[in-house]
C-alpha cells in the first residue's frame, strides 16, 4: 500500500492537524481579538473533515489499513468520527460567549479543540496499541487544559488538576496493561494480538486485558472508575463539560469497542463479566448518586455515568447487534447530552451569572417557556420515555441483550432505569410545577438556539423516521468491527 494512499485514508486527521498548526501560528501572531475568527475557521475545518469522513457512510464503506496496519478506515471509524467532529463543532459554537464574558477566550481554545478531535479520531481508528496510545494522550492532554482553562477560577483549576492526576493514573494503568499484552502476544498490532491470544491466552495476558479495560473504564467514566466525573464536570467551565460529555466519550467508547471486539474478540467470555458488572454498577450508581444532587452539572455528570451503563449493556451482548446498538446509542446520546448542557449554558440570570442549581431553575416554564420545553423533552429522552428518541437508544441495546440471552441483565438494567427516571422528572417538576424563583436572562444568542434546536430535533419523535437509515449505518459500522483479518 502506497504512502499516498495512506495519507488519503487519514485525510481527515491530516487536514485537521495541518489546520490546527496553521491556526496556531495565526494565534501566535494576532491579538486575542482574532479568537472568534479562529473559532470560525476551526469549525470550518471540522466541518470539512466531517463531510470528508461522512461520505463513506452513504456508500458501501471500504475497509482498508493505512501505514502498514497502524490505522484502519472502516464504517465504524467513520461513524464515530462524524459524531466526534459534529459534537466538537457544536461545542465550539457555544463556547466563545462563555469565556469572552470572563475575558478568558483565547485562540488556543479552538486550536486545542482541533487537536483533541484529531486524537479522538485516532482513538477510534487505531488498530495498533501504539497509535491508540498516541491518540488517547493527544485527546486527554487537550482535555486537561480545557478543564482548567479559566485560569482565575479555583474550581476550574481544581477540576483540571484532578482530571490530570487521575487521567494520568488511568493512562498508566492502560500502558501497564498494554505492556503485558505486548509481552504475551509479542506484537502491538490488533490482528496479531488476536491471533496470538487465540492460540494461547495465559493468565498474564488476562491481567493485561483487565488492566487495559480498567483504564478504558476510567476514560468512559464507568463505575467503579467514575469518581472523578462529578467533580470534574462540576468544576470545569460549562462549555468544557459539554465537550467532555460528548466527543471524548464517543472516542473512548469507540476505542473500547474496537479493542473488545478486535484483539480481545476471542476472549469475549473473559471480559463479558467485567462489562456486565461495570454496566449494572454504572446504571445503579449513576441513578442513586444523582438523586441527592442539587447542582445541575453534577447531576448531568451522574446521568452520563448512568448512560454509560446502558451503553455497556450493548457491549456485553458481544454480538454485531449489540455493537450496532452501542453505535445507535452513541448517536442518540450525543445530541441528548449536548442539548442538555447547551440549555444549561443558556440559563443565566440578568447579570450573566450561570444558574446551576435546582433552586435556580424553578418555575422556568413560566419565565423561559421555550427553553423549559426543550429541557423537558431532553430530560424525558434521557430517562428513555417514549415517544422521545432516547427510548430508541435503550430499546436497541436491550434488544441486543435479549437476543444474546442476557435476559436477566436486561431486566435488572431496565428496572434500575426507573430509579434514574426519578431525577430526570425532578428536573421537569422543578421547571414546570414549582413557582418561579429567579428571573433568568431573557434572550439567548442565536448560535445557542441553533445547536439546541438541532439537538431537540434529533431526539424528537420525528427522529424515528430516521431509524431505518440509522440502523443500516450502525449495522455496517458494527459489521466492520467484526470483520477481522
Amino acid at each position: 500500500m502506497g504512502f499516498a494512499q495512506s495519507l488519503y485514508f487519514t485525510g481527515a486527521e491530516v487536514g485537521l492537524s495541518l489546520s490546527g498548526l496553521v491556526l496556531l501560528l495565526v494565534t501566535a501572531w494576532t491579538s486575542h481579538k482574532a479568537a472568534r475568527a479562529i473559532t470560525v475557521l476551526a469549525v470550518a475545518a471540522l466541518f470539512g473533515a466531517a463531510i470528508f469522513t461522512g461520505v463513506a457512510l452513504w456508500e458501501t464503506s471500504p475497509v482498508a489499513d493505512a501505514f502498514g496496519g497502524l490505522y484502519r478506515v472502516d464504517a465504524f471509524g467513520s461513524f464515530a468520527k462524524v459524531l466526534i467532529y459534529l459534537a466538537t463543532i457544536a461545542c465550539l459554537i457555544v463556547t466563545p460567549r462563555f469565556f469572552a464574558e470572563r475575558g478568558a477566550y483565547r485562540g488556543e481554545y479552538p486550536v486545542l479543540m482541533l487537536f483533541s478531535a484529531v486524537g479522538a479520531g485516532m482513538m477510534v481508528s487505531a488498530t495498533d496499541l501504539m497509535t491508540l496510545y498516541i491518540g488517547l494522550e493527544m485527546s486527554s492532554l487537550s482535555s486537561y487544559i480545557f478543564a482548567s482553562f479559566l485560569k482565575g477560577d479555583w474550581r476550574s483549576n481544581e477540576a483540571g488538576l484532578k482530571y490530570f492526576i487521575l487521567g494520568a493514573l488511568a493512562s498508566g494503568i492502560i500502558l501497564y496493561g498494554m505492556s503485558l499484552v505486548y509481552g504475551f502476544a509479542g506484537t502491538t498490532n490488533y490482528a496479531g494480538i488476536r491471533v496470538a491470544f487465540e492460540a494461547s491466552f495465559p493468565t498474564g495476558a488476562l491481567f493485561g486485558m483487565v488492566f487495559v479495560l480498567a483504564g478504558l473504564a476510567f476514560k468512559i467514566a464507568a463505575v467503579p472508575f467514575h469518581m472523578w466525573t462529578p467533580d470534574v464536570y462540576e468544576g470545569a467551565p460549562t462549555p468544557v463539560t459539554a465537550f467532555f460529555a460528548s466527543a471524548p466519550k464517543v472516542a473512548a467508547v469507540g476505542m473500547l469497542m474496537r479493542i473488545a471486539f478486535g484483539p480481545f474478540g476471542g476472549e469475549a467470555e473473559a471480559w463479558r463479566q467485567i462489562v456486565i458488572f461495570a454496566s449494572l454498577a454504572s446504571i445503579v450508581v449513576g441513578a442513586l448518586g444523582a438523586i441527592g444532587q442539587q447542582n445541575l452539572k453534577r447531576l448531568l455528570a451522574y446521568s452520563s455515568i448512568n448512560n454509560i451503563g446502558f451503553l455497556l449493556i450493548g457491549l456485553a451482548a458481544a454480538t454485531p447487534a449489540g455493537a450496532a446498538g452501542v453505535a445507535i446509542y452513541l448517536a442518540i446520546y450525543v445530541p441528548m447530552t449536548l442539548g442538555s448542557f447547551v440549555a444549561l449554558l443558556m440559563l443565566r440570570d440578568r447579570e450573566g451569572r450561570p444558574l446551576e442549581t435546582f433552586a435556580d431553575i424553578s418555575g422556568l416554564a413560566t419565565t423561559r417557556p421555550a427553553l423549559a420545553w426543550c429541557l423537558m423533552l431532553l430530560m424525558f429522552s434521557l430517562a428513555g420515555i417514549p415517544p422521545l428518541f432516547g427510548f430508541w437508544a435503550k430499546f436497541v441495546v436491550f434488544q441486543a441483550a435479549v437476543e444474546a440471552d442476557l435476559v436477566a441483565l436486561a431486566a435488572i438494567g431496565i428496572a434500575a432505569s426507573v430509579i434514574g427516571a426519578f431525577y430526570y422528572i425532578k428536573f421537569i417538576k422543578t421547571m414546570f410545577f414549582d413557582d418561579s424563583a429567579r428571573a433568568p436572562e431573557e434572550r439567548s444568542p442565536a448560535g445557542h438556539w441553533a445547536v439546541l434546536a438541532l439537538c431537540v430535533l434529533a431526539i424528537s419523535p420525528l427522529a424515528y423516521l430516521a431509524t431505518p437509515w440509522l440502523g443500516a449505518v450502525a449495522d455496517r459500522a458494527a459489521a466492520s468491527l467484526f470483520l477481522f483479518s
Partner: protein
Amino acid sequence: MGFPILSVTLAVPLAAAIVCLFLNAPAARTLALAATLADLALGIVLWANYDIGGAQWQFTERADLFAGFQYALGIDGIALMLIVLSVFLMPICILASWDAIDRRVGEYMAAFLLMETLMIGVFCAQDLFLFYIMFEAGLIPMYLIIGVWGGANRIYASYKFFLYTLLGSVLMLIAMLWMVNVAGTTSIPALMQYDFAPQAQTWLWLAFFASFAVKMPMWPAHTWLPDAHVQAPTAGSVILAGVLLKMGGYGFIRFSLPMFPEASAQFMWLIFGLSMAAVVITSLIALVQHDMKKLIAYSSVAHMAIVTAGLFAFNVQGLEGAMVMMLSHGLVSGALFLCVGVIYDRLHTREIDRYGGLSINMPMYALFFMVFTMASIGLPGTSGFVAEFISLVGVYEASSLATLVLTTGIILGAAYMLYLYWRVAFGVQRNADAAAMRDLTGREWLMLAPIAAAVLWMGVYPESFLAPMRKDIATLDARLAGAAPTGDARLAPGKPRSYPANAIAHEAAAAGEAE
C-alpha cells in the same frame, strides 16, 4: 381501504395539540373543543362503518416507516368500543376544564389532546412496539396534567403515578423483546396466534401482569390511583378513570389472555384472589372516606376487580361482562368525577361533610348525581347492572366462591355509594355557602346529559355495544378453550343407573342379573 381514517383520528388531536401550545386561552379552548368534536365525529363514522361479523381486523393501515417495528393500525370490535369511549369522553373533559383551568390553558389543552392521540393509538396499534410507545408515552401528558394543574399535594401524586406505572411497564418491554426474538414478528395479530412454550408463558405473563396490574390498578398495586385522582384536576380524573384504567383491561384481553392462555389459566386463582381481596378491602376503605374523589377512586379499584375476575373466568359471559364493565365504568366513574367537579368548582372543597341537602338548592344536579350513583351500584336499567350481572354469571361458571365474595363487594358498593349520596344530596343544609350554590349551568348540562343518556342506553339495550365485540370475544374464547380450567359450578354428570330409581329391590336384582 382508501381513506386512512385511523391515522386521521390520531392526527387531528396531535396537530391541534401542537397548535394549542401557541394560542391564547380562549382560542386554545375553542380549538381543543373543535378538535375533540371532530374526533368524536370520526369515532362515530368508525362505529357506523364497522362491519359487524366481518373481518376480524378492520380499517387496517400499514407503513414501513421505522426499523424494528411497523406503523400498523387496525381495530377489532373490542378496540372499536374503547376508542368510541375515549372520543366520547374527550369533548366532555374539555368542557369540564372550560372555566376550572385558568392558567397555562394552551399547554393544558395541548397535554389533553396529546393524551387523546396516545389513548386512541394504544387501542388501534397492531404492532407490539408501537403499542408500547403509545402506552408509555401517555405518562408524559398525565404527569404534566397532575403536576401542573393538580391540587395541593400534586407533586407527590405525580411522582407516584409516574414511577409506579413506569416500573410496571419496563419489565413488559423486556418480555416483548423476548417474544419478538422468539416469534420473529412484531405484529400483534400474528402474536395472538403464536403458541409460546408453556414455561416461557409463565414469565411473560408475569412481566405483562406487572404492567397491567399497576395500570388497572389491581390491589395491592392500586395505591397510586387514589393519590393521582385526588390531586388531578377534574378532567384529569375523568380521563384517568374513564380511559387510562381501561388500558390495563385492554392489555389483559389483547395480550395476556390470547398470547399466554396456559399461563393465564395457571394464574387464574392469583387474579381471582386479588380481585376478591380488592373488592372487599377497597369497598370497606371507600366506606370511611371523607374526600369524595378518594371515595370514587377506591370504588374504581373495586369495579376494576370485577373486570379482572370476569376476564379470567375463561368463558364468553365473563369476557363480555368485563368489556361492558369497562365501558360502563368508564362512563359512570367519569360522570361521578364530573359531578364532584361541578360542586368543587363552586365551593373548592371535596370534603363530604361540607355539603348536605344539595337536592334542595340543586335539584337537577341531584338528579344526575343519583342516576350515576345508581349506575355505579348496578341498578337494573343502568349500564352498571348489565356489566355486573354478565360478568358475575361468567365468574360463577368458573368459581362459585369467587362469585360469592365479589357479590359481597357489590353490596358494600351499594352501601358506600348510597352513604355518599345521602350525605351530599339529602339531609339538612349544614353550610350556608353550600346551600347557596347554583344549580347546573348549560355547560354542565352538556357534560352530564350525554353520559346519562349513554348509561341508560347501555342499561336498556346493551346489544348495541355487545354486537361489535361478539365475534372477537368468541374468537378469544375459542383460543382459550384449550386451557380453560373446569369450573366448580357445572353439574358433574354421574354414571347413569341401568334401572329406574323407584324399582323394587328384587326387580332391580333381576335386572342386574339380566345384564
